[in-house]
């Protein structure tokens, strides 16, 4: 046997359990952190765009 087969059960030796718990937390939080970052960036950009005069917005559309 090369590795303990229960590396991901959390019941293994301390290093395996520790890294399992740390990796679980990281992998769960990572998507939220990244999406939160994108969202924050979009909101900040939107605020900045609203503050600046809107050159790209076309007002000449028939409604």
């Amino acid at each position: 046997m090369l590795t303990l087969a229960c590396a991901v059960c959390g019941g293994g030796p301390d290093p395996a359990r520790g890294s399992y718990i740390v990796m679980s937390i990281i992998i769960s939080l990572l998507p939220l952190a990244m999406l939160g970052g994108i969202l924050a960036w979009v909101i900040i950009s939107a605020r900045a765009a609203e503050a600046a005069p809107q050159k790209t917005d076309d007002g000449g559309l028939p409604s």
Partner: protein
Amino acid sequence: MSSTATPEASGHSHDDGHGHDGHAHGHAEQNFFLKYFWSTDHKIIGFQYLFTGMFMALIGGFAVYAFRMQIAFPGMSVPGYGRVTATDYNALVTTHGSVMIFWVAMPVLIAALGNYLIPLMIGADDMVFPRLNRLSYQLFLLSIVVLIASFFVQGGAFGGAWTSYPPLSAKPEYNLTPLGAPMWLVAVALEFAAFLLGGINFVTTLMNSRAPGMKMFDVPIVIWMIVIASILFMASVGPLVAGAIMLLFDQTVGTGFFDPKKGGDPVLWQHLFWFFGHPEVYVVLLPAMGIVAEVITTFSRKKLFAYKTVIYTAVGTGALSFFVWAHHQFIAGIDPRMANIFSVTTLLISIPVAEMVFVYIATLFGGSIRLTTPMLWALAFIGEFLLGGVTGIFLGSSGADIYFHDTYFVIAHFHYTFFPIAFIAVFAAVTYWFPKMFGKYMNEAWGKVHFWGTIIPFNFIFIPLFLLGARGDHRRIYDYTHFPDLMKPGMQDLRVLATLSLVVLLAFQVVFLVNYFYSAFKGPKAEANPWKANTLEWQAPSPPPHGNFPEGLPTVYRGPYEYSHPDRQDDHWPQNSPS
């Protein structure tokens, strides 16, 4: 990325992929192949996904018919299939599960409705990346080709269940499908790539292509839901793709990522799989919830109760869904202490979902409810999904899951969620947007026949399965006669009842298909806004032409659910109506 990614190209794009055909009259000259197969029009791509999804539903439905008949009448030759052997049975179960989730629920709820509705409902003429969109459908079609081809290769289709747990799925000597298993995996991976591209399109389109005046909180709930679901999908699919690549290497090259004899760990796959697998439930649930919001507000002439709360609960559900995956593994050999944590998070996720359902029920209060076919489907979604939701509490509670895990109770539970999601809500959507899609009406009377012919057998399939699960029937068994405790009096009768109800349910789908396709060609002509709805797609002609809004893109003045406003004579107030 794509060379269509410029703001200019992302505008009104008529090109057929070669850039020489950029004008409004151009598409009339396109031949059938270019128009319907090579199109970049979001509506055509939506239809392609919808019809492909319907076709795959027939395959999934046929698979369930064959294996349920085997359970009810073991050893009998199934009419239309023949004898179901143990190998066949496993392959059919796997096919049913993976097809219904990956090739029916996902393409119809996310891709078909997302493609069709997002540009129309936010008042845009097309997606931001039209050619990426076409590529997405082509990849999806390729995944289907690979999947269907795997039925006919030597050894037959993969039979290791849609969860594909190694080592069973990793080695041909265990699963006896040397080609079926890798092909299944490749098909799933291709399908994910397709939806990844689609999802990118949805999110970007919502962000950057909204009609003038449309704020984020003027966006209809169904669009919010599809986009949140797409984001959820994109953020959760990575680990599963990583796992799929590792499993593919295990199957073909001989690595040992999941092989304990080579230093791997079979439970690792389960983590990677369920890290995606649980958010996936919400990926399909949220669009279904969105459809219901549109339909019940229209047919009860009510403003949606607490619009923002619905969005916040959807976001909350999505965020929480990253923390619940291990509840699929309570008894899979993970540390028992982990079960306590995941039991708590699992029950917590019931709160936003329950709140969403409460909001919908509250929306009915004080309404003027018309029970049209789409409304019946939408209401049935709430009624049936409630049972699916509350039975989830049994399985999320670690102590009770020890008994219920892998029994028919689980099957009944998730079919009470997935059937309302993938069929009831989809029927609501298909009947509700039918006049918009085809400019014709569907037949109401036959629509109601189909409704009752689906809802009643549905309950008669799965309530017996709850009872069987509570009595210990476990999953994926092709013949229960080997288990004396599972052949007690009455149990086989329940299995037969469930199977016969399934046959009735499947038979009634013919009513739908005939009604759908007949009405699409021969139905009475529908006006642009037959339901007197507020959202923008109803302000376009039916069916919308290429470019969607021939009079120019609409300007939005208010939110999507201003029904029965006290200051107005009309009981609807379109989003783009200036006053």
